[in-house]
Structures are given as C-alpha cells and as structure tokens.
C-alpha cells in the first residue's frame, strides 16, 4: 500500500513508523524539516518538506498513485482541507483527516469525509470510565 501522511507529529510519525514496519510505502509531508526527527534514525520511507495545501507538493508526494492519505497536522482546518483535496481532486480511495473539534468533524463526516475526532473518542472513553466507577455505599 502507498500511503501519504501529512504532519509529522506524534500521530503522523507513529503511523509512518508502523506502516513501514508492516512493509508499506510511506511518504511523510511536513512544513518543518526538524519534525522528521520524530521518525528516528534510519527511517526507510520518504520525507518531503512542504505545505500539503499546495497541489504541486501533493503531486510531488505521489498523490496520483496513493492508496491512502492521512492528515494529522496540528491544524484542524489544514487537515480537513488537505483530505478534501486528496479525496475530491485526486480521488485517493481512502482520505482521512484528524479533527480535534467535534462540531467540524461531524459536519465534514456528514458530507462524506472520513474524519477521526480524538476529542470525541476521549470523551466517550472518559465517560465509560466514570460510569464504571464503583458507587460508594457510605454515600453522602
């Protein structure tokens, strides 16, 4: 599988390392070259410095033949727009955006974009954890 990852932060770099371990071809795009340090030494995938909003940068990353595209920069709007470009302009079969804001994540998901909202997932897990807490019998 040929995968493009935008944003080399904790999530992006973690995905990139796991994907190359699994034997996939990976290109990581980030505006800041120093972010690639998170990949550690000897990363066998490709690193590309540039703004992924720029269609030429995406073409350079090989988007025309990509099987999957994941955008995980620290900007919700950047992630949504990049994934929309990958999906709508380059017809990448699987384009995913990490979106912290549950409201925006819901709107774009409703219109067909694959969004992952860590905030919503954290809320659900925290709520489950709270619900699972034993109720004190001595009670106030």
């Amino acid at each position, binding site marked *: 599988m040929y995968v493009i990852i935008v944003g080399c932060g904790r999530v992006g770099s973690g995905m990139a390392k796991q994907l190359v371990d699994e034997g996939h071809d990976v290109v990581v795009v980030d505006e800041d070259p120093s972010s690639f340090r998170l990949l550690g030494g000897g990363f066998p995938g490709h690193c590309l410095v540039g703004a992924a*909003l*720029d*269609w*030429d940068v995406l073409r350079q990353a090989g988007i025309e033949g990509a099987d999957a595209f994941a955008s995980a920069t620290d*900007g*919700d*709007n*950047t992630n*949504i*727009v990049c994934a*929309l*470009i990958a999906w*709508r*302009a380059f017809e990448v079969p699987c384009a995913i955006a990490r979106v912290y*804001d549950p*409201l*925006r994540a819901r*709107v*774009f998901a409703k*219109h067909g974009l694959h969004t992952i909202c860590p905030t919503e997932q954290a809320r659900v897990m925290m709520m489950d954890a709270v619900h699972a807490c034993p109720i004190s019998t001595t009670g106030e």
Partner: protein
Amino acid sequence: MFVVIVGAGKVGLNVARSLTHMGHEFIVIEQRRSRYDLLRPELEERLLFGDGTEMWVLEEAGIVRCDLIVAVTGDDEDNVIIAQLAKLEYNVPKVVARVNNPRNQPTFDLLDVDATVCAATMMISMIQHELPSHQFVPLLSLKRENMEVVEIEVSEDSPSAHLEIKDIRLPDGVLVSAILRGGTALLARGSEVLLPGDQVLCLLAPGKEKELIRSFLPSRKPEDVQAQASIDTINE
C-alpha cells in the same frame, strides 16, 4: 443586508467601514486579542472576539440569518473552511473568500466557493493590462454568474482589425462590450471600426477564451503562445 466578516485585518476592516457607509448591518470576527483590542473602540459591539472557523463562534455572530459571509483571514485553509461551513451547514446565500496565496486557488475552485478575490492574481492581471505587448488579459471572473471579463488587443495583422464590430466573426457566448482607445473607453457599437492598438473588453462564458483569441489574434504567431500561456495560468 446582514454581513458576517471573518478576519479584521486591513481587508476585513475596510470592508466593514464600507458597509458602515452603505448603511448595512454587519459583524466582524477577530481571533487575535491585540487586533481586537485595537479595533474595539471603533467597531464596538460589531466586533466579536473568537476563532471564526469555530461553529459556535459563527453562530454567536448570527451566521444563521446572514445574507453574505466574507472570509478574509490571512490563512487560506481557514477561509476555505469558513466558506464550506457557510455553504454546507448554514445555507448562507453568498460567500466571498480571500485567496492569500494564488497557488491555493484550485482548492477554492474545487470546493465551489462562489467568489474569490486574490490580490496577487489581480495585481498580475493589472500589470499585464499595463504592458503594451500583452494580447490577452483576464480581468474579472464571476464564477457563480458564469461570466468572465477579458481584455484582448487588436494587432496590426489581427483578422478583426479594420472591421466593424458587427462584422467580426465572434464565437457564440462572446460579447464585445467596450473599446479602450487612446486612454478612453468607447461603448462597442456595431458600426464602430476596430483599429490596431485598440484594447477590446469582452464579456464571455467561461471556456470561450481560445475561440475568442482565434477571432482576434493572427494564427500561428508567437503571440498565440503567449496568449495560450495566459490561459494556462488561469486554468492551473
């Protein structure tokens, strides 16, 4: 009319001032605290502090009842998102967005933003308009109205030179509207004869550029290449 403006930079502020003069109701959203503090005395309660790409901020500004939203922040991804939210979620009748970097124009086009304004692209057009040797200059694109305004120069060997406007073989969907000659604009009456050196303003449907160029520029000349390059720039 009620207008929501996102971004109180130079553009947003001046749009707000113009709307004040025209007597329209508006609200401006600004997320930089220092800019907000600076402009609050002038705009008072018509300035709202917050991130205009957050839906609850847009709702607080009154997006559900606005007639027009103007997305003029300094970040293209934010302007795209504002335009998308306005359209997909709030059915705002009209959206105008600023394109900061012309390289992002394809994204605005991809997502069907009604009207975009790009200072850099406009400046390039204006410079081309000023250059004596430029044969074809796109001046204005009204995307939603499906109409473009272009300027084309009549050269000495143009097939349309020395012809009356009514005798020019124009493609369908093209209208010659004015002639710029010697620094003044003339309305393009059918009996007006085109002279070499005239610059002709044409209204046309998008996609008619190549046919129009064929009516005005001599075929198989280097100018064709230059005009073609202009078109390619637009289409990129």
